[in-house]
């Protein structure tokens, strides 16, 4: 059932990676750790793309999308880090629980 020849095993890996990424996003206090989690989620999506692309038509659409995603992930990481920097300048910490000025 988990042979490397089946689609489902790659999807499972994708799901596992997604869950780990989600868990990291939700529970880590360090802002950069949260960004690392986001990268994990994006990479899980990449795996899903490539797996589907390989086992459906045999073309290379999936791989192309995966390259777009990697590019986007890089851009997004840059922007995210810029925001973290801005937050650090205000709060003097990158603990996400410190940024609660929107608390009602």
């Amino acid at each position, binding site marked *: 059932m988990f042979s490397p020849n089946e689609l489902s095993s790659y999807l499972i890996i994708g799901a596992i990676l997604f869950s780990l990424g*989600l868990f990291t*996003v*939700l*529970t880590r206090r360090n802002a950069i750790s*949260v960004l690392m989690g986001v990268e994990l989620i994006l990479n899980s999506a990449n795996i899903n793309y490539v797996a589907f692309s390989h086992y459906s038509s045999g073309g290379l659409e999936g791989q192309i999308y995966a390259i777009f995603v990697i590019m986007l992930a890089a851009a997004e990481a840059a922007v995210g880090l810029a925001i973290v920097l801005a937050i650090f300048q205000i709060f003097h910490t990158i603990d*996400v*629980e410190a*940024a*609660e*000025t*929107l*608390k*009602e």
Partner: protein
Amino acid sequence: MDHPIQTDYLRWIVFLPLIGAIINGLLGSAIQKRMGKGAISFIACAPVILAFGLSVYAFLTLKGLAAEQRFLIDRLYTWINLGSLKVDMAFWVDPLSAVMILVVTGVGGLIHIYATGYMHEDKAFWRFFAFLNLFTAAMLILVTADNLLLMFVGWEGVGLCSYALIGFWYQDHNNARAGNKAFIVNRVGDFGFMLGMFLLFWSFDAQGHGTLTFREMAKWASTLQGQQLWGISVITLATLLLFVGATGKSAQIPLHVWLPDAMAGPTPVSALIHAATMVTAGVYMTARLNFFFSTAPETLHVIAWIGAGTALMAATIALTQTDIKRVLAYSTVSQLGYMFIGVGVAGYAAAIFHLMTHAFFKACLFLGAGSVIHAMHHEQDMRKMGGLKDSMPYTFWTFAISVLAIAGTPFFSGFFSKDEILWLAFTSEHGSPMLWLLGVLGAGMTAFYMFRQFFMVFFGECRADHHTQEHLHESPKVMTLPLVVLAIGAVFAGYVGLPTVFGGSQFARWLEPVIAAHGEEHASHALELGLMAVSITVAAFGFFIAYLMYYRAAFSPERFAGLAGGFFYRLFDRKYYFDEIYQVIFVNGALLLARLGSLFDQYVIDGIVDGSASLTRFVSWLNGLFDNYIIDGIVNAIANITFGAGNQFRRVQTGNINSYLYGILIAVVLAIIVKLRYWS
């Protein structure tokens, strides 16, 4: 009686004085200012004199007719036509009302003339004559009405004018009170009159011919014979009720109390209203309805005895009075009692005869008293008079004639009329010797107190003060002339009613179409002469005692009064305490009722009103509570819930990124589940 002769002029007998009253009443004040009192006098006296002329004409017309046809009517129009009640505005002159209109306009006219002199200094001259004319008009309506309802209009009218004239000098509260007393006591009688009238109409209506017209009632009188109401014969009940009315108007016991107080009015008023005319209305009414009264022997009995009682009681009171007008007032009550004795023994003609002679001599006496009062500068106490015969000759002689007449001196008018009544009281089947005896006693007392008055006023030393004595003078001609005319009447008016012994009463024969002659006396001439002799003797005795006491001063009145410890004197002087008894029972009783009513109003009615106000305030207070706590509570609660809910929702905004992300995750998962489950 069924076919009276229609005329056109009878209405003017009533209307002329009425017009005089209206002119003087509405314009009198202005006329008096511009044209003086002479104009008022003319406007007042001319109608009455003209009415007298018309009355004489009507009388002569009647005389020219055959006896069964002596009925004149002036029918103006139908006044009331309502179901079975049909009442005309019609004036009726038959032998009976002819006598009355002659007396009213004749004696009334003389009194009007006299009054122009007597009231000369009074500022409200015009008001006096307006009311005097109105009174005359009302009295004429009373005596010429052809039906009971119109008679009642006149009946009430004279009561009203009596009130207005008694209280003429209303600025003095006592006079106003006297006027009130007259009217109120009269009203009690009027209530009886009305009830009697209603009963008669109702009873006739039950037989199918409801009517109030005299000639029709006379025709159908016999149909009421058997009818009963609550066990009493209807005729008896109705006649008794009507007699109650007569009691009030003619001042008999127990409604006599107003007449002495009525002397508060000017003397011409006392002469006209309370001697010659208004008080005789009761006698006239019973004579007019003689066909009823003759079929109700119980009522006649009551009438005779009340008449006798009143005659005697008033005579005893008159013995003690010292006011010159009071003596005459009680004398009037007493003489009216005689008239009712006459009615009570079914001697209606004799009663009317006495009414006529009484009008002459009593009016003369009152006007003479007025003359004396005028000369004495309004002094009315006889104890302050005396010796006036030389300074007032006309007054003296006319007064003397009238005193002789009222005392029943032979050959004067009063003798014939009074004796006729006494004779009938003895011999009629309704009468009794006892009744006659009371009458004779009263006649004796009448002689006594009238001569007492005569001697006290005109003879002896003058007891007035010096100033008044110097100014004693005879009254002007306008006042003495009526006195003379009335005195002539007082002498000669009696000759139309001679006793049977001397030829029979022409007067009674004249009245026969109206008053059926009772069966001719079956008693003997000797008895008649004998009774006459007794009454002459008794009157002479009364004169003699008065002569001894007041002319010769042989024994003093004070000793007489002191007999029996002064008991009788006090009883007579205090008028048998009638006024005091009535005051306690009726006046205080009415006041008590008024007070009870006021208390009821204060505590019960106001209590209810205030209570409902308090209740309203209480309800509104509850309302307020409700509004405050419940309504506001709901509104506040909603607001609070919203607030609380808002507070709770606010907790979502943690500002914590992690919790926001959890929220997103949960929402996406839910969306996926929903999508997978519910949408294909």
